[in-house]
């Protein structure tokens, strides 16, 4: 035994002599630690290499998951969830209702169509469609004015009635004969009225273009 180790043992004995109660408490705890070590030894004996690898793998996965979960984004997400808990609960309820009624699947399919539309369009098509839509809108605006609407209906009904009948070929004499028919007289009056209005419209438009 070396001189250095003899000195350390003497110091330990002196320390025990000075603190007998603390040493007694330490020994009692040491017994508990030993019991625990016995249990671990039992476990170690029962484990196979594969089981150790599995346990180690699971532990590592858990650790990695915890590490992965604790990213800046997930912490931010958790904060957002916490701050908007009530709204998210409501939203989840709505989602569950959609799921129960089958509407969620419909919405997912409609989402596919929306994705299709955005994929299919390009700038030119958007511009062209918007232009066509605008022209149609302007036309619809004019067509839905009450008088225009009534007039167009009268005209369309007249066209439909004419199509339903078999038109005859009419020469000058036939035209003169037809002119005595009150319906034809009313219709001619109507057409002359349209002709007058179109002429007036074009004159006004022409004058406006000339002054520009």
């Amino acid at each position, binding site marked *: 035994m070396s001189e250095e180790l003899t000195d350390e043992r003497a110091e330990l004995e002196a320390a025990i002599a000075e603190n007998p109660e603390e040493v007694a408490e330490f020994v009692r705890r040491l017994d508990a630690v030993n019991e625990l070590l016995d249990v671990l030894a039992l476990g170690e004996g029962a484990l196979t290499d594969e089981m150790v690898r599995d346990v180690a793998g699971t532990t590592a996965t858990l650790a990695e998951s915890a590490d992965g979960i604790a990213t800046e984004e997930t912490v931010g997400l958790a904060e957002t969830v916490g701050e908007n808990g009530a709204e998210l609960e409501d939203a989840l309820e709505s989602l569950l209702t959609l799921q129960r009624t089958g509407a969620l699947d419909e919405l*997912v*399919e*409609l989402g*596919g*169509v929306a*994705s*299709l539309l955005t*994929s*299919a369009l*390009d*700038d*030119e*098509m958007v511009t*062209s*469609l918007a232009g*066509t839509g605008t022209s149609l809108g302007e036309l619809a605006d004019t067509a839905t004015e009450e008088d225009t609407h009534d007039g167009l209906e009268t005209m369309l009904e007249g066209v439909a009635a004419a199509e339903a009948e078999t038109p005859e070929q009419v020469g000058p004499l036939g035209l003169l004969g037809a002119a005595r028919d009150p319906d034809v007289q009313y219709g001619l009056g109507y057409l002359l009225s349209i002709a007058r209005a179109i002429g007036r419209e074009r004159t006004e438009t022409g004058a406006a273009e000339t002054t520009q």
Partner: protein
Amino acid sequence: MTEHVVIVGGGVGGSVLANDLADRLAPELEDGDVRVTLLNDSPEHVYKPVWLYVPFGQSEVDDGRRPLADLIDSRIEIRIDRVTDIDTDAKTLGCRDSDRPIEYDHLVLATGVTLAPEVVPGLEEGGHNYYSEAGAEALREELLSFTEGHLVLSVVGSPHMCPVAPLEFTFMADDWLRERGLREDVEITYTYPVGRVHGTPPIAEWARPVLDDRDINVETFFNAESVDPEAKTMTSMEGTELDYDLLVSIPPHRGIDVIEEAGLGEKGWVDVDNHTLEAETAEDVYALGDTADTGAPKSGSVAHYQVSTVGQRLTSRIRGRPPTATYDGKTLCFIETGMDEATFVAFDYENAPSPPPPSEKIHWSKLAYNESYWLTARGLL
């Protein structure tokens, strides 16, 4: 001096471009500074995607035909004739029914494709196809009476029109036969010339499990060498022999001969800059749609999207400005995955396709677009 723009071909690309230029060059057309002529060998415009539905009795070939005169803006001159030669030095076109050549300042080739089944011995006699009006109608007669046996869908030629149509036909045939309680009596085999089920890898990766789930046999690396119509067998260059009862093929495709004769590109495809769509070997010549060898699929959507590039570049040149518009490879194709469901792929030179889950809504979208296609032809959609 009046500049003359000549568009050869009245299919999707040519017709949409003609109407596009009618709007874009409206002032020049009104002042007589520009003329635009659309030259086509038939007075009718044909919308080919309709043919896919003809064999299943869901469309008639007439649904895909309209007179060009009804679709093309009145400011465009329509001329019915067939181009017999192109002189890109003299800037003239020879035509079958005209003694005098047509002079052009700017030429757009949108001549499309022709079928070349004769490249594979026996294919014309032994195989059906839905890539022509007559072919689709003949196939309908065969398919309607086909209740048992081996149906083979063989992609023989590549590139071909509408690259997903072979998959569509296969999926539709499978579903159609199931609906009629005949699928158990019909074996289906799909063949493709390369080592996957489609030329575009993401589409192949998506389609392969669908084919497998539906018990559709797959033969890849199958390059058809010959067909024996009597024995009803098909042999590949790789040495595989397939028996069939009904052979539906995608025949080899070619462009028109005059393109190769004019030195503009091989097999009738014009060599172009993939982005500007300007011919590599001649000045003031553009190509679009199936005619342009860009690497983009030969599909109507490609022709449609390319129109704005050619339209803008032509307009810029005519107005003496540097053209800047370019084509980015934008492509959109619907894929029918059965009789009631479809998906779609959208991609370009940079971005790969990723088909969403098939749905009835996308199938309806395809049907709706096919019906409203005539607005596209008129330049409205």
